[in-house]
């Protein structure tokens, strides 16, 4: 039993205990779940402290047999990528609990308990090294999020919740088929062992086999990312979810998809990944531009931020499928950045909704005069989101664009358009909401941030600055692990001139 096991176990035990607290004790449930999630967060920091940056491979490993036949292991560990994603999950959970403190009135016991269950699933997904275990955690995440959206969401919550569930479930059953298929070939679910067998030629996959297996995993992950054109569940889910749900969805859950691509798809099926990279990259770039353009015309703040997620996640996919060290580093860094800054955006939009009870941009205006602190915080987050230097997103986007340029210059040209567009829609949003005439409703219903709001937002703002100013805290371990992924994918040389974009010709650098 090491530190990682405890970080995984705390939310699970907390979930069960929270359900046992009598319904009337609302305050006790809130306090208990907050304490659990904070404990998990503090302990997960211990993972970062104890992590040996120089070493590659997993650390904090526990590997015990769970089910004897077929042999399924409880095999967990962290490496340079999953470490930070686990900490992201444990950081966002207490924030999600805190920001729902007063805004959830009915069935609050279930709400806070489900947030812990969600945390359990998320940490487990990022820690699992056994494919079967990974699938188990992957599905566990689905249930609490479905209920969070469906029970505590807004008007069209049921439609959004069911759509979310069916989309993700349909993708993941294909992944299950692929996992079982791999098991029948390799005789094990252990990811590292399967990878060894594939790399050593112990398992030889025919071209068709590899392509189908790759696609089965890829579609499951692409739905989660979400990659254009599989993104349609995302705006619905985000808009209808309660604030805590949106924050967890944007900050952590979308990363399950990109993490899966990086962790499983690319190393296990390098040939298929390389072969399919051109159209995947095109889809990613379409997502970047399309997400940004659609975000620009949204009348609804949450929907705007949701579409900006589609755009930002496109960068991550682009980085991964550029198969360059810089691209991969940027992709992982951008996962964390997006978690922090988009999480903060949803949080702030949630604050405004709690006050004014509207998500329509036209219902706001001149907020800066009545809530100056809220405006300041929102501005910092906006700037971070559009990639202003010294704030976090700049580093990630820069690395991705540079990596993409190494692979194919045209890609980065088109992707860079997304950066410009993001400045357009975010700044325009800021202008319409915070400047201009202050209406009576806004004047009366927009108190500035209170202590609890500050507690939620300060850690995120601090991280935006830290990650923008001193990325090496995070990047050193990420880079080391990315190098391993790159080497596993046999792709030490970048892809050159493999694709010609419409009108752009082929630009090999």
């Amino acid at each position, binding site marked *: 039993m090491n530190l990682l096991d405890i970080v995984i176990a705390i939310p699970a035990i907390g979930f069960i205990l929270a359900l046992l607290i009598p319904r009337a004790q609302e305050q006790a449930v809130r306090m208990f779940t907050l304490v659990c999630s904070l404990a998990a967060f503090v302990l997960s920091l211990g993972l970062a402290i104890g992590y040996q940056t120089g070493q590659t491979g997993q650390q904090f490993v526990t590997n015990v047999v769970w089910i004897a036949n077929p042999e399924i292991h409880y095999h967990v560990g962290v490496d340079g990528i999953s470490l930070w994603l686990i900490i992201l999950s444990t950081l966002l959970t207490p924030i999600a609990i805190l920001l729902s403190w007063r805004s959830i009135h009915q069935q609050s016991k279930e709400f806070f308990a489900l947030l812990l269950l969600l945390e359990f699933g998320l940490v487990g997904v990022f820690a699992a090294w056994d494919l079967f275990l990974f699938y188990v955690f992957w*599905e566990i995440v*689905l249930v609490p999020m*479905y209920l969070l959206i469906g029970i505590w969401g807004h008007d069209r919550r*049921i439609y959004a919740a069911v759509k979310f569930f*069916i989309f993700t479930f349909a993708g993941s059953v294909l992944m299950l*088929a692929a996992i*079982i298929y791999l*098991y*029948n070939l390799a005789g094990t679910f252990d990811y590292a062992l399967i990878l060894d067998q594939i790399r050593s030629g112990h398992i030889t996959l025919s071209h068709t086999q590899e392509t189908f297996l790759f696609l089965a995993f890829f579609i499951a992950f692409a739905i989660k990312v979400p990659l254009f054109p599989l993104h349609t569940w995302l705006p619905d889910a985000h808009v209808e979810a309660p604030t805590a749900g949106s924050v967890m969805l944007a900050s952590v859950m979308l990363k399950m998809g990109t993490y899966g691509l990086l962790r499983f798809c690319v190393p296990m099926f390098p040939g298929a990944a390389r072969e399919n990279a051109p159209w995947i990259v095109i889809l990613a770039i379409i997502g970047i531009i399309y997400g940004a353009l659609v975000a620009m015309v949204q009348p609804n703040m949450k929907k705007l931020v949701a579409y900006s997620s589609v755009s930002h996640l496109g960068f991550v996919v682009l980085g991964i499928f550029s198969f360059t060290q810089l691209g991969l580093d940027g992709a992982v860094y951008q996962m964390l950045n997006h978690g922090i800054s988009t999480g903060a955006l949803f949080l702030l939009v949630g604050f405004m909704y709690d006050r004014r009870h509207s998500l329509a941009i036209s219902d706001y205006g001149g907020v800066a005069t009545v809530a100056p602190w809220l405006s300041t915080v929102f501005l910092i987050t906006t700037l971070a989101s559009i990639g202003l230097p010294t704030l976090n997103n700049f580093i990630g986007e820069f690395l991705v664009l540079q990596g993409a340029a190494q692979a194919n210059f045209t890609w980065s040209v088109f992707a860079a358009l997304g950066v410009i567009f993001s400045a357009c829609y975010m700044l325009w949003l800021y202008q319409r909401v915070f400047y201009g005439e202050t209406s009576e409703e806004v004047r009366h219903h927009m108190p500035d941030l209170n202590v609890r709001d500050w507690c939620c937002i300060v850690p995120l703002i601090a991280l935006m600055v830290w990650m923008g100013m001193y990325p090496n805290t995070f990047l050193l371990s990420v880079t080391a692990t990315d190098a391993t992924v790159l080497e596993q994918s046999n792709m030490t040389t970048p892809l050159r001139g493999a694709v010609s974009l419409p009108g752009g010709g082929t630009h090999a650098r």
Partner: protein
Amino acid sequence: MPANFMPSADDLLRFSPELILTIAGTLLMVLDPFFGKRAPRLFGHISILAFLAGILGALGAQSGTGFSFSNLLIVDGYATFFRILVLSIGILAVLLSYKYLDRELAETGEYHALLLFCVAGQCLMVASNDLIMIFIGLEISSIATYILAGYLRNDKRNNESALKYFLLGSFATAFLLYGIAVIYGVTGSTKLDEIRTALSQPGFSMAAVVIAAALMIVGLGFKVSGAPFQMWAPDVYQGAPAPVSVFMATGPKAAAFAVFLRIFMTSFQQISSDWEPLIWISALLSMTIGNFAALTQNNLKRLMAYSAIAHAGYILVAFAAKSDGGAAAVMFYLAAYALMNIGAFAVIIHICGKGEKNLRMEDLAGLGRTQPFTAALLTVFLLSLIGVPLTGGFFGKFYIFRAALQSNLVWLTVLGLLNSAVAAYYYLRFMVVMYMHEPGEVANTLEPLSLGLRAALVLPAIGTFFLGILPGAVLNFARASAVFTR
């Protein structure tokens, strides 16, 4: 060999579950005139004791496995697994019935006696090594179910259900019997192992054997409600009393699958390449018809009937794998399915009210708020029916599709898994209504769970989690017993 009409002690032990149930059933019929009015619950208690004694008998028989009664019966791990399964289903069915029979002011003595006879027939079926014995067991079980389906004789729907089931059921049994006759004509035997031996010699008419197998597929396919012989199931399940519907969908179905598998994996194993395509098609049709038809149902019992057809389809996928691993997956899935289906039906019986008037999906509205415990357990069963990890249903599906992939049934696996995504939609509707709608009249005026229903909810929930978190023990037993006598 001189004729010896006295059964040996071994024979009696191997036959003990059937003996116990038959004696108990007869006892109930004798007691009925005396206590029928005064102590209606007594019969339920006696039945539970009889089922428990039957389980002990089955375990005792397992200590000395082997043939019995001149090779008519066979007690092996496979038989013991299914005996314990159908006996446990019997216990849960009794627990489901207490409250229901109370509410409907129904007589209890005959009901429980029929239940005992029915399970006795199933125990006999699963331990038969002879087609005639299988037929007798099947008839004992079926005739009791025909009566049970129409048990509330003043209810029109009950009568419709019983009549439909009886007419179609006898028709299907005739096919089975016809198949038995043909195979007897070809091989000169009705014993499963002797048929196998005969078929491994040259010099028999292949066409006749294939016809016999096809006829048996019709007869048994009807009993397991596999498409295209599933037409009766929605009407019959909808019309029968709710505890009987769920009993029919679990107990007789498990027993029918058990003999289906035993016959085809023992006698007809050599011609498996001939019957595999039929099972393949039946599996795909059952899953697709069941799931897509369930999407539009609003009557809870009818919806669960279509879901039962779909689940029969999943089981047929493992059947089509025609391997021992596939047989083990069938065994595991039937156990998991019985638990989750009974649990879900316990809630339906809880809310349906006198005369089963509250059976619409909307009648579950707001249950999550008025009875959170009941709703939470129903959620567990629904997640298991969908196949979400940490529940028995997930491992059941996992083992099935693993066996199918091992036998290279890639397309069937992919289509089956996509089917289970379709199924998620209608199971989610339950949760939507329970948790995301305002409490309706039914949920607001619902009485608390009765003791019997509470037990029929909690026990399957424990079982579902047990099979979902520690499936090893059950699966190992299934794998060890899924080796047929050959």
